């Protein structure tokens, strides 16, 4: 859908209208940019979005509070863990409950891994669109190392649904720290290779330096946050400004650059990946309630045998017997469950030992799962923000006291930069649109919701 007819004349000059998108090979994302060209120079641009509008906010109103978690995965599908946790934290704020320390650390670690994945994809895709295909292959290779970590923890590579209101789905698997250290080492190697390939590269710099500039004032007026804001020298980062989870207990820098061009954004992202890995490493090292050394004695029983014993009234000591859970539920055994979930029966499902082995546990489980019951925050509203990969990711939730959210609003971090995209590309060459579009890192799921 490229090149849709020539257009109007103005001032005696023929202007050409060129529509890019909604499906364009050099743009990763479905969006339509209608440009008005004077030769090769963009005089005017109009951005049209909404091609991936999937009614996220309406869908959230239909199910219970935890039912919205899978939808949040698919907002920013490059860093879904951050969305999960931000949404869960917004509901926790509404409920006024606090999660366990270990859970906060897990959220911090997994968010940072997600952020690295996001930046890897963004830088890789931008480089690919400029012809540096090698960088893309390298970056996706590095992302694959991290996805293996994510898969070990959550059971899925991409759409993970790992966050829960009041905690996380399961504890980290044994030996996670060692695995993470190994993956980070591999990622760092890839990053140093990419630095050698791109950072001083003449062609890359020609396309990036001084292109897509947005001034500091305009960036703020457009409420742009994230790497674009830090690219103009404003060190605003929600992790630093309003510390949540375990961000106040780790040491990290907020990298900034001055120029506000594509190259600055690239440098900010590259530096942030290193910082994210630093945060994750520190959090892994200082995490409370670390891996349990001694396992339970005795053999684990299968759930049906466990239920049978309970039915026969042999409940004495039953709750101390571990159950052999399906691999999907690994990390949710009682001893791990209490470490990562808030101690609040209104919100968190009981551990499976209780569900299978005691009537109270079963009731508790049903009270959270059954239609018309579930989590019921009191009347009210709350806004919770965290630093997504593209900037401030906020969830504004309104509760009407029932078991389903009355309104869920996601503040999409990549909408403001897209609204300002015409300001960045007007007056530049048509070819400059591609790196600029790459550097704003448009993610359809989050932009259009």
């Amino acid at each position, binding site marked *: 859908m490229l090149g849709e007819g020539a257009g109007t004349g103005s001032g005696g000059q023929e202007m050409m209208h060129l529509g890019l998108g909604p499906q364009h*090979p050099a743009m*990763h994302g479905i969006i339509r940019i209608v440009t008005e060209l004077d030769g090769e120079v963009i005089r005017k641009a109009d951005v049209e979005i909404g091609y*991936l*509008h*999937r*009614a996220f906010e309406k869908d959230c109103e239909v199910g219970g509070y935890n039912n919205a978690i899978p939808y949040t995965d698919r907002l920013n599908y490059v860093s879904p863990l951050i969305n999960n946790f931000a949404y869960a934290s917004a509901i926790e704020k509404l409920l006024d409950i606090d999660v366990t320390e270990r859970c906060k650390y897990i959220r911090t670690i997994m968010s940072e891994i997600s952020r690295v994945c996001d930046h890897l994809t963004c830088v890789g895709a931008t480089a690919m669109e400029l012809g540096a295909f090698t960088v893309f292959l390298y970056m*996706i290779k590095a*992302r694959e190392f991290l*996805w293996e970590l994510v898969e070990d923890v959550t059971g899925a590579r991409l759409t993970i649904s790992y966050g829960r209101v009041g905690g996380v789905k399961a504890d980290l698997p044994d030996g996670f720290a060692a695995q993470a250290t190994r993956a980070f080492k591999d990622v760092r190697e890839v990053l140093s290779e990419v630095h050698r390939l791109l950072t001083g590269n003449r062609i890359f710099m020609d396309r990036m330096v001084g292109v897509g500039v947005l001034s500091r004032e305009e960036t703020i007026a457009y409420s742009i946050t994230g790497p674009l804001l830090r690219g103009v020298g404003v060190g605003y980062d929600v992790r630093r400004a309003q510390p949540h989870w375990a961000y106040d207990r780790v040491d990290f820098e907020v990298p900034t650059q001055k120029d506000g061009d594509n190259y600055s954004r690239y440098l900010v992202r590259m530096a942030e990946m290193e910082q994210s890995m630093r945060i994750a490493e520190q959090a892994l090292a200082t995490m409370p309630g670390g891996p349990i050394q001694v396992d339970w004695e005795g053999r684990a029983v299968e759930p049906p045998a466990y239920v049978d014993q309970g039915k026969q009234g042999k409940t004495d000591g039953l709750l101390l017997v571990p159950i052999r859970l399906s691999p999907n539920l690994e990390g949710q055994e009682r001893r791990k469950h209490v470490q990562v979930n808030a101690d609040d029966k209104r919100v968190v499902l009981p551990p499976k030992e209780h569900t299978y082995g005691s009537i109270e546990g079963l009731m508790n489980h049903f009270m959270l799962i059954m239609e018309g019951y579930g989590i019921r925050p009191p009347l009210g509203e709350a806004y919770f923000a965290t630093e997504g990969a593209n900037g401030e990711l906020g969830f504004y939730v309104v509760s009407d006291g029932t078991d389903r959210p009355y309104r869920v609003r996601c503040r999409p971090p990549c909408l403001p930069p897209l609204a300002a995209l015409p300001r960045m590309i007007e007056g530049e060459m048509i070819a400059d649109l591609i790196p600029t579009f790459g550097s704003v890192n448009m993610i359809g*799921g989050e932009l259009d919701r």
Partner: protein
Amino acid sequence: MGVGSFFTSKLDEALGWARKYSIFQYPFVTACCGMEYMATACSHYDIDRFGAGLPRFSPRQADVLFVVGTISHKMAPVLKRIYDQMTEPKWVVAFGVCTCTGGFYDNYATVQGIDTIIPVDVYIPGCPPRPESVIDGLMKLQDQIAVSAQRY
């Protein structure tokens, strides 16, 4: 069996064999599935082993339309137009459950399966499908291409 039909069936076989290993795909990437599409295309899973490594970013030069990700009603006319622009012979792969049925997006914005708009040859379910199932779907498509009536 006459000599003529012997030759045409052998020619069909040869053509089918050649076609199945020279798939030029058009990735119509819209959403989350695109991330897994990238993963499948890159070094870890390497779709090039199946002769499908080169995407053509013009529908006129592509054989297979990979519809990767949710199609909204706003996007549907675009998809139809891309499909119409492709030359015969052409195949369509529905990548991910949103393209197969609409997935869990049962709402006002989402097309409930792209087969309501264009014909589909292979469905790859999953949200998103793992690279292994993508490769499985691709191999199923190759089998279809190999045995389908060849036009020349």
